[in-house]
């Protein structure tokens, strides 16, 4: 029986996105499923951003907390450390201190932090709120203004606050993350609402909502797979944006990344376990189409970079 490789060509393709000014990074642009370069063009590799926050990472487990022990008191120093020492391709600055349950710092403080971080580094920046719907609407408007001219990615815009955040992204020439919660229809609807405001659909990045290994990863897997198939196979122009996986915050919050070996001897080394939890969660997101990852542990990032290299080389046996 002669074998003909059943390659598939899809009518749709994914928009590519470039962010940053001094140094830029481009991702997306595929004409096929993730790492299917053997049948559809995949011009850019996924990008990994290191997460930096403006609030002490006291709740990060030791294995990842200790990496940033000397720098985590100042987000600009922290960002610079990621750029210079860890060779970060991009930085994701999370303005966590603005959350009412954290320090509830005002939007003006966040704007100052953004300006300081932008002064400190030249790699492209993702600016994230604290995921508080009302507060983010204030904070991200101020942050977007402070970052005007640097072509950042800002977010996350959700159904309840997308209007102000979209307007701020539009007025200050930034790209926008649209977050919906594990639902392909809500994802599509939010993209439509945002574009109805006159915001270009090629400037949106989809966040279908990440979840950690063992904590709903299967849901994220299938939602992402369906979004990507809608974009490629059904050529649905509303869903053809690249996807974000905000991995670190989910992976490092799990019990598996925190429970000491003394308590659960069958789970093995805590340090390796935590890194593996972040690496597998991130690796799985790559396989379903994420082009932009936000991660925390440098060893997990290094393994992912090796993995990306291997995945994109299907012709080397």
């Amino acid at each position, binding site marked *: 029986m002669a*074998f003909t*490789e059943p390659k*598939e060509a899809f009518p749709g393709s994914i928009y590519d996105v470039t962010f940053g000014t001094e140094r830029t990074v481009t991702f997306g642009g595929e004409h096929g499923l993730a790492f299917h370069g*053997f049948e559809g063009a995949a011009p850019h590799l996924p990008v990994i951003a290191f997460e930096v926050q403006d609030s002490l990472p006291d709740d990060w487990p030791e294995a990842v907390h200790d990496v940033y022990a000397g720098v985590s008191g100042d987000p600009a120093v922290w960002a610079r450390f990621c750029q210079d020492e860890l060779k970060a391709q991009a930085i994701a600055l999370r303005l966590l201190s603005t959350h009412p349950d954290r320090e509830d710092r005002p939007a003006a403080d966040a704007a100052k932090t953004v300006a300081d971080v932008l002064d400190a580094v030249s790699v492209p920046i993702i600016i994230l709120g604290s995921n508080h719907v009302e507060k983010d609407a204030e904070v991200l408007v101020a942050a977007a203004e402070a970052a005007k001219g640097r072509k950042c990615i800002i977010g996350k815009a959700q159904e309840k606050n997308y209007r102000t955040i979209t307007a701020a992204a539009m007025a200050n020439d930034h790209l926008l993350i649209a977050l919906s919660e594990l639902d392909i229809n809500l994802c599509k609807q939010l993209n439509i609402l945002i574009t109805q405001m006159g915001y270009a659909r090629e400037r949106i990045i989809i966040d279908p909502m990440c979840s950690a290994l063992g904590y709903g990863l299967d849901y994220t897997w299938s939602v992402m797979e369906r979004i990507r198939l809608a974009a490629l196979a059904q050529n649905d122009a509303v869903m053809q944006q690249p996807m974000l996986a905000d991995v670190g915050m989910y992976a490092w*919050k799990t019990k598996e990344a925190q429970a000491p070996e003394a308590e659960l001897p069958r789970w093995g080394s805590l340090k390796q376990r935590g890194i593996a939890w972040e690496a597998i969660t991130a690796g799985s997101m790559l396989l379903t189409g994420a082009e932009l990852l936000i991660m925390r542990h440098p060893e997990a990032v290094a393994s992912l970079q090796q993995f990306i290299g291997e995945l994109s080389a299907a*012709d*080397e*046996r």
Partner: protein
Amino acid sequence: MALSGVQIFKLLPKTNCKKCGHPTCLAFAMKLAQRQASVDACPDMSDESRGLLGAAAEPPIKTVTFGAGPHVCTMGEETVLYRHEKKFVRPTVIAVRIADNQPDAGIHAALADVLNSEIDRIGQKLRIDAILLDYVSGNSARYQQLLEMVMAQAPDVPMILSVQDADVAETALRSAGTKKPLLHGVIADNFEAMSQVALKHKVPAGIIAQGLDAVAQLAEKVKGIGVSELVIDSGARTAGVVLRDNTLARRAAIKKNFKALGYPVITFAGRDDAMLETLVAMTGIAKYSSIVVLNRSEQWRNLALFTYRQNIYTDPQVPMQVEQKIYKVGEPTPESPVIITTNFSLTYFIVAGEIENCRVPVWLAVMDCEGMSVLTAWAAGKFTPAKIAQFIQESGLPEQLTKKELVIPGYLAILSGALEEKLPGWTVTVGPREANALPAFLKNRPQ
């Protein structure tokens, strides 16, 4: 290739005679398409149609088993490319490679790791499923020693014999008796002799060639000799090639009905770098490998890979459930609050995780709602004041508590009044709507 109901209908007599037990031929065709009826139920079908439908009813990926006893490994039978279409049915076999060219101590240590690998997760007992005995010493007596050590220490663990020498394979299979190992070692140069060995001992055979075309051709030849249970190895060793070969093979089998690749796939993930090996293994689990072979089995990796396999192979239509009971989070006292939620595993994990992270001890009451989330369970009438009250009263909790406070999910604040009536002596507190607000809620409440 699976036929649609309409395609099947065209092959039926279209007499609507009802002899098959269905009202019309079309209804029967639909049942056949869903594999809920047998072709044999129709007495009037032509032989030609019967042949076509019989071939179509065979699973596109052949069922292959190896091992014997309680932990036999069953592979194949998959029917889709994407798990949202239909459940992936046969979870990837996770195997560990043990080579015969190492001292006994190394073999004992590797076997101990395998035997000690069992972990319980959401009620499933997960473990290293198989051992691959790798013949690399070139000394058949040494391979025989390895085989004897494995059978003595791990008699219930299914074996994969990685041997390309037909004489060594013959000796090993004679020793293995009825254990039905997978004989992984058929290559172009030995296929006739190896096929005869596999046939004689009635064991499945692994077909090894470089590339899908070569492996398909070799599989056809071995099948021609009479070995029907096959596993294929296209030589893919890096993540990109695994993804490519596995995707093309699965597509060929399912969408093109290409039988020569319609077999379970074995993937060797082994690397010097443990984390990279884990990621290659993950690729195999997500992307269609029926067996993934690792070089080592550290516990942290087992936990991560078993959990990943559970995620990918869970039924997307059926929610995962945890057991109904009162879970202690931290060290709760008779004064600690009781938080109630449903037994949807995701709900449980997220709620329990948030409480654990804030280190406030709590009694977490998880109520059986058939795996529904809180709002769905409430809408379906499974999470009502009467049922919650009954569950709490019968849980044994009231006898242990001096301060009886029940925290209910914020979305169901509407239940608080009715619940207080049905639970005399209890204070019902409305908790936050989302689990991520639990730490702030628990830390900021009056003690």
